[in-house]
């Protein structure tokens, strides 16, 4: 692992036409941490992670992931991405979906089978692997999406609202899963608009109207804002109070 942080965002702005969606954001994500991007919907979280994942290009500034300027296909091989909506092929089974994405990442033969079996077991879908995905519940689809994002053992995992619309029990288990993945050395970026989820992140970036208003550990941020909860801290940094 290089000495540089795996994700470096430097003075990045993104405009769609005249609308500024991301405004001069700089941040580093350190190796092996869970970095949370917290903000209301429409704040620009998705746009930012899409740029980090290499799908979108910054209008200004640079993004370096694993030492490469994004977008870069080489770096994208080492990134796992889970989109906000489940991008799955409903008529195919879970297994077939995984086989497809595994081959896209160049996994084949025995290695492919091993990884698929491992990931299915990890998200607890082994018994349902031969069901077509359109029969899956929302939670099962989310878990399958997560398993697919992890298939190629990415060094960086980017998750866009992974727990939206998921029941609390399942949400708990996904976060436990993320923690296990992190312990194996994967760097994780996760977006959320749920304040109590933010507490589970190693560090947090608060985003409001395209601007990064605060970065730090959850307890640090609360202390700095003199707030009891993350939500209050967010309001303070966002300029709603004081």
């Amino acid at each position, binding site marked *: 692992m290089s000495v540089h942080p795996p994700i470096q965002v430097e003075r990045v702005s993104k405009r769609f036409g005249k609308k500024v969606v991301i405004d001069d954001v700089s941040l580093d994500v350190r190796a092996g941490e869970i970095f949370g991007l917290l903000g209301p919907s429409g704040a620009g979280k998705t746009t930012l992670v899409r740029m980090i994942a290499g*799908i*979108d290009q910054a209008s200004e500034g640079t993004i370096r992931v694993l030492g490469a300027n994004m977008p870069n296909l080489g770096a994208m091989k080492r990134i796992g991405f889970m*989109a906000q909506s489940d991008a799955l092929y409903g008529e195919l089974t879970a297994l*077939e979906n995984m086989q497809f994405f595994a081959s896209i990442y160049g996994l084949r033969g025995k290695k492919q089978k091993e990884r698929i079996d491992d990931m299915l077991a990890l998200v607890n879908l082994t018994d349902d692997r031969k069901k077509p995905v359109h029969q899956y519940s929302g939670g099962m689809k989310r878990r399958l999406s997560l398993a697919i994002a992890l298939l190629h053992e990415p060094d960086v995992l980017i998750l866009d609202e992974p727990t939206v619309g998921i029941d609390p029990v399942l949400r708990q288990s996904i976060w436990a899963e993320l923690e296990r993945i992190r312990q194996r050395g994967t760097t994780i970026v996760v977006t959320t608009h749920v304040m109590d989820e933010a507490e589970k992140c190693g560090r947090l970036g608060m985003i409001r109207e395209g601007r990064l208003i605060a970065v730090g550990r959850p307890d640090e941020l609360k202390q700095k804002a003199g707030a009891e909860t993350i939500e209050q801290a967010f309001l303070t940094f966002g300029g709603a109070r004081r």
Partner: protein
Amino acid sequence: MRVMAIVVRIIRQFFRDKRTLALMIVAPMFILLLMDLVFNGEQYKPAIAVSEHVPDMVVDKLKEAGAKVKELSEQQAREQLDDQDIDAWLEMNGSAPHVTLEGSDPTANQAVMAAVQQAFQSMAPKPPFQLKTTYWHGSSDMASFDYFGPVLIGFFVFFFVFLIAGVSFLRERTNGTLERLMATPLRRWEMVAGYMIGFGLFTTIQASLISWFAIDGLDMMMEGSFGYVLLITFLLAMTALALGMLLSAFANNELQMMQFIPLVVVPQVFFSGLFNLDTMEEWLRSLSVIMPLTYGADALRDIMVRGKGFSAIAVDVYVLLGFTLLFMVLNVVALKKYRKL
């Protein structure tokens, strides 16, 4: 290889979606069959009423010419013309025949006139020589379906592939999988190539079955080589595939994809040779140059009706290949909407 991953996936999806599979193959056959029944039906038998002054010989000749003949008074004839029970009323004023046509159906009009003319002609003295006719292409028992047929084969292959490819690729856009794929190292050209190969396999089967059904099943006129027919239908299908994918970039949902049918598909029918364009304004006629179906239909007609070989269809083959490549390149460019790289 990543392209193969897409091919395998498309094939799997196809087998899950049996209805679409059936639509691609059975629907064109069904419509061709209907067309065959409509255009190859028995010749129309006109119902002609005659006045009592019309000689029996004329009546016999009319019957010989295929008409249904009955004798009516003028009053009855008027009523039946009005009720469309008869197609025409024939009377004799002295030696001059006079026909009153019901007149609203051109097919019936023509049939009446042909019968009447044939009847009176056969009574006239024989001309001193008879015209000998030789068919350079075709034959005297060629039906109009034989002439439309090649265009129809081309059209149905084009239409159904265009629709299904467009909707499939659109679905990939709308359900987020395309965007998800753009977060993988998959290259844009690999995406397009995967689709072309995956769908290409199916369209090959589809085009073969449709051509076989039309030629062997419906006994459509076939002078040339079946291999060339397959080549052209395959190329047409690939053009439709690439064009459907491309246009799906400009549609936000299935309904908007359907809106391309009157814009893109239907005009091609009019310009591809189903109707004679010689009476059309020159500049308007030249529009057909940009329509893939023109080349496909032209080549299919050359092969099936005129029995020509590769040299006659070479230009059409190259143009169709060119269209396919052009649309593929444009597809790769259009995917930039999802990822710049």
